[in-house]
């Protein structure tokens, strides 16, 4: 809300601040290194670490990474589209649309994603006799990929719709009324007045949701979709260095999610300073 007063008050020269930051980073890295070294040493008493042979399987990990990124991207787009529809349903003047949206959101938000994916793939998919491949308008898709993406986007839609709803509700109702009184219909008012303003409120939490989605895509391993986690698990069960593989796996996930977390933080700061004061 308020601009960062601390910087103005202290007014230290830029070089000094950079030096302080560098010192801080150095200190915490040293601390981390010492802690990890102690843990590593304790573990290596019972477990022979073999990093060099483990690191030769990075090609398989990269293949899994590509699939994880593809699945997450498609599921995010579908989930956002569906989430917007659900949010609009929850804000509609028709009570049954509102309540159907509410039931949809709350029933999916309150079950684990694992249960949902098991339900979709082992419960719903066999009822369609669509095991190996799904025929979607003459376009053959791998069954695991289809049901995995469908489950992920349906599940995420319930979370994303809450973000959209909060974003739309954060726009003062007088804006809608003013747009309507100018002769716009409901959809034009949404399209040109409410949604563009809601967009900036919605973007930071949406980035956070993308992180959650990437994390949830790890569960697609239970339907044997060969993404990052399944790759590590398959390689790990054949070869004797499981610890190394799971550590590499964690590093891969952090390489996806940490930049997104940083982006989310930056977007939040950027949008905070801009618009909110003008409204109130």
């Amino acid at each position, binding site marked *: 809300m308020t601009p960062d007063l601390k910087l103005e008050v202290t007014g230290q020269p830029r070089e000094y601040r950079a030096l302080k930051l560098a010192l801080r980073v150095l200190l915490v890295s040293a601390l981390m290194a010492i802690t990890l070294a102690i843990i590593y040493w304790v573990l290596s008493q019972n477990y022979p670490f073999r990093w060099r042979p483990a690191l030769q399987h990075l090609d398989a990990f990269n293949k899994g990474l590509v699939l994880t990124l593809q699945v997450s991207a498609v599921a995010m787009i579908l989930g956002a589209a569906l989430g917007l529809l659900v949010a609009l349903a929850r804000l509609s003047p028709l009570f049954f649309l509102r*309540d159907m949206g509410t039931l949809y959101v709350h029933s999916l938000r309150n079950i684990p994603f694992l249960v949902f994916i098991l339900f979709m793939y082992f419960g719903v998919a066999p009822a369609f006799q669509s095991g190996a491949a799904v025929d979607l308008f003459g376009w053959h898709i791998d069954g695991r990929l289809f049901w995995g993406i469908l489950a992920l986007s349906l599940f995420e839609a319930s979370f994303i719709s809450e973000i959209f709803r909060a974003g739309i509700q954060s726009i003062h109702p007088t804006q809608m009324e003013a747009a309507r009184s100018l002769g716009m219909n409901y959809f034009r008012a949404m399209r040109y007045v409410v949604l563009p303003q809601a967009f900036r409120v919605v973007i930071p939490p949406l980035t956070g949701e993308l992180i959650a989605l990437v994390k949830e895509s790890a569960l697609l391993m239970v339907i044997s979709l060969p993404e990052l986690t399944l790759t590590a698990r398959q390689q790990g069960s054949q070869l004797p260095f499981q610890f190394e593989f799971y550590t590499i796996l964690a590093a891969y996930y952090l390489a996806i999610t940490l930049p997104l977390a940083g982006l989310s933080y930056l977007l939040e700061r950027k949008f905070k300073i801009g618009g909110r004061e003008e409204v109130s």
Partner: protein
Amino acid sequence: MDRTSTDWSRQARSAFWFVLRLGISGILLLGAVFLIFWGLGSHYTFHWAEALQFDYLMTFFIGLKVTLQLSVLGAILAILLGIFVALARLSPWGSMRDFAGVYVHTFRNLPFLVVALLFYYGLGKAISLHSFQFAGQTFRPEFIWGVLALGVYESSYLGETFRAGIQSVHKEQVEAARSLGMNYVQVMRYVVLPQAFRVILPPMTSTLIALVKESSLLFLIGVQELTNAARQLAIPTRRPYYFEFYTILACFYLAIVVPLSILSHWLEGRLGASRALKEAAHP
């Protein structure tokens, strides 16, 4: 007397309309789902009577017990660790703060599945735990690693919640309490924590809900919990009514989580902290 009775009848009427509304919408939603289900060409026949047998339900209840044990033990561990994380994040030493920050951001940005696999298959290989008996029940190593993974993972979320709660208490209050001669522990105990508690409780409940949901992943490391029960029952060749079993599984989780959700919502309204914050944001 008269007034309470009219209040009661009004409440009863509104409750009636609420239930009716929810019923209509629920039927509409289920109808839509099944229209899609059959419209897309499914010829599935339901076997609810077979799926709801006593033996099968007992399997679910045994799984439920393990899920609840995992959740409660994991939650206790997560709260204890979370307090340490929050204190470290608020400590006067910069490197301590950064250290805890690295811990928090590492675990928050990993999938819980990866943490569970790393703990059980990674650490489990180097540190061998033995199963032990307690209160007539055997706790196997995968259960212990599962509780540890849950506790460590969720402590990174709870730590941030606790920190935000403590920071929501104005600094002037701490200074005022210190100037009255209280020491750090007394300030925390009598001034900061009682106020922070109001802010912390609702988000803490939702983290605990997430913990219950995440405990379902522990079937992948071999813990015999609720999801595992459904996995064992729903074998298509032997019992061709998998759909029913997974629906029952979902209902079991809803039965644990929905009361917690309602509690979280109720606390949020009752404690009024977040409402006060909302009112401050939109006067």
